[in-house]
């Protein structure tokens, strides 16, 4: 086991920002809008760094795919404790069409190249909400996966992963190398302290192109339109259950 953990981090619009749809309906406004690391990716980085601090892993590599600004996100990961970063340069039209399929191909290629023992990603990104990248990466690598992890521990040459599923909690044991996706309660990410941000400046970020990894980026999806959800209509208060039933019947719901 190489003891290398590959962590995928995505640069998304900050969760506190009020999203505005572009007038031409091709997407949301991103220019001049505050961006930060996807919250689930922060949890993934935190878990990876903790594994290294417990000496269960040796090196944490943070990866991000996108334009130049992604380096800021990688630097945040470095400030949290990742050892080095890899920036996969994707820009323009390619970036607009970048989805879980393309990213997972990149992650799979990097996992093989870096001989990673473990790939950790957030369960989903707060912009796409796809919840596919981790799973696809595992499938492409033919590695076991522990998704929606709320607890991860090393068990011999494998991992014990506690998963949050609809019915409750499920424990699985998977052999390494494996892919894990981080859920909300996995951990509480540390604050990047200012001295660590300073130290992170000295850590390396390597740049690489998808073509170098043998990955082609054509998308199988075409976005037709992006629109605001319909305005919520105000409700009606009724006095009794009888009234409620009548109203429901009238509206055709019953």
């Amino acid at each position, binding site marked *: 086991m190489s003891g290398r953990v590959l962590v995928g981090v995505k640069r998304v619009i900050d969760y506190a920002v009020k999203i505005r749809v572009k007038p031409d309906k091709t997407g949301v406004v991103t220019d001049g809008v505050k961006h*930060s690391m996807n919250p689930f990716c922060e949890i993934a980085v935190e878990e990876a760094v903790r594994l290294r601090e417990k000496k269960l892993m040796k090196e944490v590599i943070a990866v991000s795919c996108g334009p130049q600004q992604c380096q*800021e996100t990688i*630097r*945040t990961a470095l*400030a949290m404790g990742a050892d080095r970063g890899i920036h996969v340069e994707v820009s323009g039209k390619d970036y607009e069409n970048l989805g879980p399929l393309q990213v997972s191909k990149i992650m799979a290629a990097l996992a093989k190249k870096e001989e990673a023992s473990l790939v950790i990603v957030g369960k989903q990104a707060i912009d796409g909400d796809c919840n596919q990248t981790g799973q696809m990466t595992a499938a492409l690598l033919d590695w076991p996966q522990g998704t929606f992890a709320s607890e991860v521990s090393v068990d011999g040459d494998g991992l014990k992963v506690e998963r949050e599923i609809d019915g409750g909690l499920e424990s699985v044991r998977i052999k390494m190398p494996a892919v894990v996706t981080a859920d909300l309660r996995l951990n509480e990410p540390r*604050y*990047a*302290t*200012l*001295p660590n*941000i*300073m130290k992170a*400046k000295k850590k390396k970020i390597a740049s690489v192109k998808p073509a170098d990894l043998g990955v082609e980026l054509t998308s199988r999806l075409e976005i037709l339109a992006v629109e605001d959800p319909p305005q919520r209509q105000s409700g009606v208060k009724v006095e009794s259950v009888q009234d409620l039933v009548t109203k429901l019947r009238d509206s055709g719901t019953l």
Partner: protein
Amino acid sequence: MLLRKVGFSPVLSTALRLAPSASGSARPAESSLFTYNGRPYASQAAEAVLDKHATGSETAAKTSTDKKTSDLESKSFAVNMFKGQISTAQVFPFPSVMNEEQTQFLSELVGPVAKFFETVNDPMKNDELEKVEDGTMEGLKEMGAFGLQVPSHLGGLGLTNTQYARLVEIVGMHDLGVGITLGAHQSIGFKGILLFGNKQQKEKYLPKLATGETIAAFCLTEPSSGSDAASIKTVAVQSDCGQYFTLSGGKIWISNGGLAEIFTVFAKTPIKDKTTGEVKDKITAFIVERGFGGVTHGPPEKKMGIKASNTAEVHFDAVRVPLENVLGEVGGGFKVAMNILNNGRFGMAAALSGTMKGVISKAVDHAANRTQFGNKIHNFGVIQEKVARMAMMQYVTESMAYMISANMDMGASEFQIEAAISKIFASEAAWTVTDECIQIMGGMGFMKDAGLERVMRDLRIFRIFEGTNDILRLFVALNGFQNAGKQLKGLQHALKNPIGNAGFLAGEISKRAKRKAGLSSGLSLHGTVHPELAESGELLVKAIEQFGGVVEDQLLKHGKKIVDEQFVLKRVSDSAIDLYAMVVVLSRASRSLSQGHSSAQHEKVLCETWCLEAHDRIMNDMKALQSSSSKRLFKNLRAISTAVVENGGVVSPHPLGF
């Protein structure tokens, strides 16, 4: 005689009247012009900061007028405006000092610091407990917030002044109590070590101070020594062997007094003058460790605001301070104190610009959502005026803070007038803005939960500490007069050799003649200010010309006694503040327009509106000073005060007779 020979205009003759009183026979130039009852005045602070000898009297005598001419070529805008001149070097274009790496680094720091203050720090809890919560203190230390400007090789972040300002702005926006805890520690507490410490002192103390393992405090104020810092009574006597000092005395209202390990203490040291053998008491700065023994502190003071910040008495009982712990030179302590305070002032303006931003958001949020009389209240003119003025004041404060920090980063040595102006303006603007925010929010604003009353209470001290605004106003005015006086002295000197200085003199005559005739002296900001702001630029030019003229007239009228004319000094100072405010917004708005910022048009309106009102204020004040009724006004004010003081309270008997 000389006058008639060379045919000078009567305008210039008044300049000669200055000659006998000011040049003085035995007593020399700068310092004596402004001593009052033999005790150094606010201008001594100016000199201390300008790196001249603090006491001045013996040494300044030697300085020739030639040396003084180099002082005349100051790049500071404020220094020059008192002479009716415009020096654009430090103010146009709006300085941008950070390189790409520094900008990138700073942008990475802003996020985590903001997040910490939004999620971890609880200002209400800190205020309630009257201390910074333990967890928060730990978090701040881990975050590196205690050593922002300590060089990185000694364990700090090595931030420039501009970077420091940006982070302090975030602290100011959220919790001024924490802001003072941090500021008392690094902005003044151990700043002396950064500015005046030798290598050994820096290496010994800075690493632990940077991580917050040890906390620092600045100990100057005593029960009988507040504004009059030179009158402190704490004493440090050097041992016979010379290896240590014995320090005794009591300091009051020391921020971090109850927490600190390392104290920068100012004490009077008896010093034997080498030439005269006379023993004089001069102030020396010391680095005192609590561990030296004899250092005790009192319980935390109960305050109106910044309750989370620890304020306590600190007593020194025959504390042995090694010779190596003298900070700067023995006897050079006043200069150390003034430089420390001067150096940290921009931080206050930065923090308060953040505070104002925060409260303005709250007020605007309320105004945009509150409906009364069938309308959202932000549609009513009264509210609109409040919001607009708040926005302008914040814009001015922010512009001052970042211009000064940039000037300091650029290596400017002369910024003490500007720094003082920024402290006065920021503290008063923040008070007014927060007051108006509470007003906009009505009853809600008065409630604890809204969070505004705490900010209001926290803000009150900012007009008092680190140099009360009243003293700083005198400082600004006297410092300005001093420089204007030097110019007149230079003029006098030139008059002694009119042929050799004919060109210079001709210019000076024509300038004054034009001024007397109400014409512009040819100053212009054309080409400096963005063309869209040309009109406002003109207002500034007119105001400076008027200001310079009045300054000169007042100086000629009062001479040395200008020091006593505090009514005049205050008004001159207010105008000086308005002038500097005008120039900073002109510079900033010009830059935004040149760079085509999306907010540039809004900034243009802010700038124009500010300049219109400031110009009018200045012109009115200057007119009032020149009018004969002002003298009567001051006399009346003085008479009222004397009577009330004599009576121990209001004099007029009750309207009801009992």
